[in-house]
C-alpha cells in the first residue's frame, strides 16, 4: 500500500504541493489525475525518494522508499519515459537496472518480450519512438515483479493498440493483488482503467475516492475533471 500523508513541497517562495493526502490500495488501480503542472510528478518523485518534501510523508508499506530493503521488489517505477541513456541499447539498460536490484538476468529477456520490445532489444534508445520509450520504462518497472507499480503518464505516446495493451496489463496486475498508482492528464484513458481517482489541481487534492463517487453529479469524467480543477482546457 502507498500512503501519502499531508505532503507539502516548496521551491523557495513557490508552493508546489500543499497538504497532499491519499492512499493507493492493493488490488486497485489508482489514477492521479490533474492538469500539467498540478503536482503529480512532484508527488511521485517524493514518493520514490528522488526529491525531498518540505513536510509530510510518503510511505510504501509503512516505510519511506529510501529505507526499503529491496526497492525493485516493492515498487516498479517509471518517471519521464524510459530513464535510459540515449546511447545505450534497450537490453543493456535493463541489464544494469536488474544488476542494481539484484534481479536475475533472465528477467531482462522476459520483460523485453512482455512489453513487445524483443525485436528492438539491440537498438539504441535514441532511435526509439515515445511509445517505445514508454514500453522500455514499463519493462524496467516490471523487472523485479514488484508489489506496486508507480507510473508517471504511462499512456503518453502509446498508440491505440498500446493503450489497450497497457490497460489490460494494469488491470491484470491489480486483479492479482498488486497496487497500481498512475498519473495522467488524459481523462478518457483514466476512466477506462481506474478504480479510484485522486484529482489534483494547483498542488492540492481537490477530490478523491472511487471513480463513481468522484464523477457523481457530472455527466462524465471529463466534465468532472474540469469542474473540479476549475479549469478550462490547458
Amino acid at each position, binding site marked *: 500500500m502507498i500512503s501519502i500523508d499531508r505532503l507539502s513541497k516548496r521551491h523557495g517562495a513557490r508552493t508546489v504541493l500543499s497538504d497532499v493526502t491519499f492512499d493507493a490500495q492493493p488490488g486497485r488501480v489508482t489514477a492521479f489525475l490533474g492538469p500539467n503542472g498540478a503536482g503529480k510528478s512532484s508527488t511521485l518523485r517524493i514518493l520514490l525518494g528522488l*526529491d*525531498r518534501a518540505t513536510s509530510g510523508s510518503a510511505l510504501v508499506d509503512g516505510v519511506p522508499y529510501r529505507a526499503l530493503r529491496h526497492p525493485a521488489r516493492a515498487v516498479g517505477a517509471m518517471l519521464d519515459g524510459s*530513464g535510459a541513456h540515449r546511447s545505450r541499447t534497450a537490453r543493456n539498460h535493463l541489464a544494469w537496472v536488474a544488476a542494481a536490484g539484484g534481479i536475475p538476468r533472465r528477467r531482462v529477456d522476459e520483460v523485453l518480450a512482455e512489453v513487445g520490445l524483443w525485436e528492438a532489444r539491440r537498438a539504441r534508445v535514441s532511435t526509439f519512438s515515445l511509445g517505445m520509450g514508454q514500453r522500455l520504462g514499463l519493462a524496467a518497472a516490471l523487472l523485479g515483479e514488484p508489489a506496486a507499480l508507480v507510473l508517471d503518464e504511462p499512456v503518453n505516446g502509446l498508440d491505440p493498440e498500446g493503450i489497450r495493451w497497457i490497460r489490460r496489463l494494469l488491470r491484470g496486475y491489480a486483479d492479482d493483488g498488486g497496487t497500481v498508482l498512475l498519473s495522467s492528464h488524459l481523462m478518457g484513458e483514466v476512466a477506462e482503467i481506474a478504480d479510484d481517482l485522486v484529482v489534483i489541481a494547483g498542488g492540492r487534492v481537490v477530490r478523491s475516492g472511487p471513480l463513481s463517487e468522484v464523477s457523481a453529479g457530472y455527466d462524465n469524467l471529463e466534465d468532472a475533471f474540469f469542474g473540479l480543477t476549475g479549469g478550462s482546457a490547458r
Partner: protein
Amino acid sequence: MRFARILHAELRKALTLPATLVAAGTSVAASVALAAYNAGGVRAAIDSGRLDTVGYTSPVEAALSATPLGTVGAVILGVVAISSEYAVNSTDAGGGRQVAATLAAAPGRVAVLGAKAITVVLLVAAMAAVALPASLATARHIIGSEAPAEPVGTIALRAAGVALYWALTALLALGIATLARSGTLPLVVLIANSSVVSFSFLLSNLTPLAYYLPDLAGMRLFAQESWAMVDDALDPVTGGLVMGAWALGLLVVAGFAFARRDA
C-alpha cells in the same frame, strides 16, 4: 551485498556507454602514437649523431611524455560517469534523465557515488594497463638498441605513478562534474587545464602555494625533476598525498551535495 549490486550496475553502465569506450580507446591510441612520434625524434637524433637536439634518449621518457593524453582520457572517464546520469533524453522519448532510474534502483546515494568512484578507478587502471606497456614497447622498438638500459623496478614505479596521477585526476573530474550536474563545463575546463595550459602552473609564477593545487601537486608522480616546469614541485610522495587529499575532499563534498539535493 547491496553495495556489490550497485557496483556491478555501475560497471555495467560504464562498459555499455559508448563514450567510455571511445574515450579510453582514443587515449590509448593517441598515447601510443605520441610515444612513437617522440621515439622517432630520438631515433633520428641518434642516426644523425646530433644528440644535443633531444632532451633524452630513453624510451621511458619518450613514452611518458605522452602522459597528458592519458590525463585527458581520465578526465573524460571521470566526467562521463556522472554527466551521463544528467543527460536529458529527447522530448520525443519523454525527456527523462537516467539519474531518476539510477536512484529508484539504488536509493542509497552515497553508495552510488562510491560505486562510481571505484568504477572510474578501475577503468583508468585498465586504460593505463594497456596504454603504458604499449607506449613503452613502441618507443623501445623505435629507438632500438642504443636505448639506455633502465632497471625494471624504476620503470614500473614511474608507470605506477602515471596510473595513480590519472586515477586521481579522474576522481577529481568525477567530483567536479557531480557538483556541476553536467558534463560540458567540467570537460572544457579540465581538458584545457590538462592539455593546453595548467591554470595552477600559471599561478605558480605568482606564488609557490600553487604547487599544492591538485594537478601540480601530483606532477612529480610522473615528471622527472629535469622537466623544466616542475623545478619546485612537491616530491612524488608528498605530492601524491596532497593530490589524493584533494580528490577525497572533493568527493566528500560532492557526495554530500548529491545526497542532499533533489535528483
